[in-house]
């Protein structure tokens, strides 16, 4: 500094005392600027974790940046498959170009050198080679263009351009801030991309989780539900289910091994539960995932299949036994009849012979039942009246029932159509139902014992309803009453084949037998047979 300059500093007009006011104003201005810079940075960082539209972020940033730095035009040129593509233009409406592979920008030297050197560079628009943007920039009277490279953690993302109408040079502070901002923005762009991928895969997992029809529940270490899928949430008995799961969950936590159990809920719902431990990186269990499969229907089907299998085997065996027994029985019955005829009734042997004959008859009846059960005896189907059938049966049983002081109540719908089937077999079912009712009343202590028989049509079925006010059937026994050889009666009285055979016959006719029973109050059996024909009785 020369002498005159020094004198000027000491005594010249420009040498002024610094005042708090001006310094404060300067400081406030600087703070405002810094605040705005921080706000912009904050905006970018804040949006980093949200699934927000990138265009939206860029628009916000540029709007705020305009208050801080003077520029007339700004673009984001994002590398699109190694080619710079124009992603966004601001101020809005300045350009019609959109990110579209048809509108790819032809990169010029400046783009690649800014990216290569990782440094902002300033170019004069007039001197640029022709590319689609140049025309637009010139029409906006943009004279100088600043190219700021956008770099993510590792890869180059693109270029951020700022156009100015006047060839004003960029201040060092502005460049520094733009560099910082572009770094942050590049990271955000990169993260947004990653975030979207993560979100997408998370969504996929959630959808998968949702799509599973079986119940999936994730438990935490306290055994409380941490997460569950829709089917678990919709399950009506969720609370008892979770209660019954606790032991296995705790075991899974304690032993760090998958476990399995069956859970029986109300209404005979059966669930298979698999529990798997969830481990963190240190192999510590922090949760248990429980998978529940409702196997009620499958079990029922399995039981039915088993039933059917059993029936098949029994049928075959029964048929064999019946055939084998038929010949000796014929001999026993024939011979006993001959002997009976020859023996006067006052002969002491007469009673013995008569017993032989009665027992023979009884055996033949059993053999006949066995053959029916095993479908060995064929019946031809024909049209018959169900009410008529009931009357025939009652003719046979009226006496027996009357003897036991059982009153009969008949309510038969009169205009029922004829149905097609084997009348003797249906007779057998009805006999069976009436005899069961009689037996139930035998053991009952009811003062007025009654059996009600009702017929009616219901949808496409004809129903024979047999109700007694006898002992009823215990709930636990209900599922088994149709099983072969299931009986509660004395050995001499029942074979345990009655209902099983009846059900077989009903099914052969396309029908079914249902039962409602209350222990101590009685039972109602419903024989439902399909109405096929048009002939009416």
């Amino acid at each position, binding site marked *: 500094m020369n002498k005159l300059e*020094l004198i000027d500093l*000491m*005594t010249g007009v420009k*040498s002024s005392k610094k005042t708090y006011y001006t310094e404060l104003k300067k400081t406030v201005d600087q703070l405002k600027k810094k605040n705005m810079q921080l706000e912009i940075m904050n905006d970018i960082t804040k949006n980093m974790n949200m699934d927000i539209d990138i265009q939206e972020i860029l628009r916000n940033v540029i709007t705020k940046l305009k208050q801080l730095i003077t520029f007339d035009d700004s673009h984001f040129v994002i590398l699109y498959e190694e080619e710079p593509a124009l992603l966004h233009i601001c101020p809005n409406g300045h350009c019609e170009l959109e990110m579209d592979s048809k509108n790819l920008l032809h990169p010029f030297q400046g783009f690649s050198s800014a990216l290569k050197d990782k440094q902002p560079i300033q170019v004069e628009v007039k001197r640029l080679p022709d590319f689609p943007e140049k025309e637009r920039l010139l029409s906006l009277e943009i004279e100088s263009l600043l190219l700021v490279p956008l770099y993510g953690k590792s890869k180059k993302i693109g270029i951020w351009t700022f156009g100015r109408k006047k060839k004003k040079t960029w201040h060092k502070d502005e460049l520094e801030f733009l560099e910082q901002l572009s770094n942050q923005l590049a990271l955000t762009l990169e993260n947004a991309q990653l975030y979207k991928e993560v979100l997408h895969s998370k969504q996929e997992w959630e959808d998968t989780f949702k799509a599973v029809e079986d119940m999936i529940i994730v438990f935490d270490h306290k055994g409380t539900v941490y997460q569950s899928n829709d089917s678990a949430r919709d399950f009506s008995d969720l609370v008892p289910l979770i209660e019954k799961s606790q032991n296995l969950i705790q075991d899974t936590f304690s032993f760090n091994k998958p476990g399995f159990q069956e859970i029986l809920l109300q209404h005979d719902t059966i669930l298979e539960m698999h529990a798997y431990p969830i481990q963190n990186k240190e192999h510590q269990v922090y949760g248990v995932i429980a998978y529940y499969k409702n196997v009620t229907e499958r079990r029922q089907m399995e039981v039915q299949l088993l039933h059917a299998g059993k029936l098949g085997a029994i049928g075959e065996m029964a048929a064999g036994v019946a055939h084998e027994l038929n010949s000796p029985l014929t001999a026993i019955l024939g011979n006993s009849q001959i002997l009976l005829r020859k023996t006067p009734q006052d002969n002491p042997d007469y009673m013995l012979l008569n017993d032989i004959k009665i027992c023979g008859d009884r055996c033949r009846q059993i053999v006949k039942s066995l053959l029916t059960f095993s479908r060995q005896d064929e019946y031809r189907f024909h049209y018959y009246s169900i009410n008529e059938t009931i009357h025939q049966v009652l003719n046979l049983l009226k006496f027996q029932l009357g003897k036991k002081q059982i009153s009969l109540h008949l309510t038969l719908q009169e205009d029922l159509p004829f149905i097609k089937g084997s009348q003797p077999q249906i007779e057998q079912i009805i006999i069976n139902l009436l005899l069961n009712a009689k037996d139930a009343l035998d053991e009952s202590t009811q003062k007025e014992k009654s059996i009600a028989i009702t017929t009616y049509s219901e949808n496409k079925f004809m129903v024979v309803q047999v109700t007694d006010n006898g002992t009823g059937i215990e709930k636990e026994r209900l599922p088994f009453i149709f099983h072969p050889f299931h009986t509660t009666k004395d050995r001499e009285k029942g074979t345990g084949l009655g209902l099983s055979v009846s059900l077989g016959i009903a099914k052969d006719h396309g029908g079914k037998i249902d039962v409602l029973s209350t222990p101590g109050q009685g039972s109602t059996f419903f024989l439902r047979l399909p109405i096929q024909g048009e002939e009416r009785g």
Partner: protein
Amino acid sequence: MSITKFVMPEVIFGKGSIEQAGEACLRLGAKKALIVSDSGVANAGWLDKVIKSCQDAGLAFATFIEMTTNPKDREIEAGCLEFKEQECDAIIGLGGGSALDVAKGVALLVTNGGIISDYEGVDKVHSPLPPMVMIMTTAGSGSEVSQFSVIVDSFREKKMTIISKSLVPDIAIVDPGTLTTLGPDLTAATGMDVLTHAIESYVSIAATPLTDVQAKNALSIVSRHLRPSVASRHNDEAKKAMAMASLQAGLAFSNAILGAAHAISHAIGGKYLLPHGEINAILLPHVMDFNRIASPRRFSEIADIMGIDTRTLTEQQAGMAAIHFVRELSQDIGAPKSLSDVGITKEMIDPIGMTALEDACMITNPRDMSLEQISQLLLTAL
């Protein structure tokens, strides 16, 4: 220079104006002031007056009086620490040049940070200083109105001249009453300093019509009132006149800067810690003699202002008469005549020249000065 500038603080002048200190500081927006002074001033009772004025005004305060003559950098750092610890927000300087320069130094460091040598030279201050009220108790330094602070760099053994408009205090209180407690030696030494300020700023190459008025007034007053002021502690008229002379000389040199006498005096004072006024008194006639040819007219005018009848003299003769007047005045009031009187020997001269050449005051000296010329001048002054 066709455009000129004159910077000065608010000035409160008059006997008893020291009692305005607290109120003045309060007006500047202060809540707690650090009063920077020295033990001599405190013993004379002026510190108590200032404290009382603060109490009366309801202004909180702290005091810092640990300092010596020729203010050192470490004293400023200590003061700065005190300022911060006491959470002060304004400075009251009370005393002679040393106390006021320390006060300015403290004010400078508390807002600008760093160490005091960072600000040596011209216009290095970047942040405004806290409000400053300066009360002078010697008719000499002019520091209460100047943009100067002269501090000893104890490591480099030199006086640093710090010049910045930011060092101009906000309010200067000039109370002639304070001069009544000064002894004759100090009155003489500081009075010679005023004379040096007046003459150097009048012949400075940065002098302006505005500074000339101040310099001439100061010169005229000193010529007439210094002798009576030294002679009696209780000559109120002389004290009032010297206080005014000191103030005006201060305004003059603050805006026109000084010359070789001060540049050399700073160099000697910094190295050997000798009283500033006395060195100036010894150097002034020699520097005037050296500078005379640069502006014979101005030197002749100086003689005029001093009251010498120059009508029959040439400009050269008048200039010589002025120098003679200074020597006579100096002798009358008992100021030391030569450097050897204050203990300087020939061997001690050599290191002084370079330091003097670097001093900011040298810039405005009317005649260019070489190292040899400084040595020659010092030899003559021995």
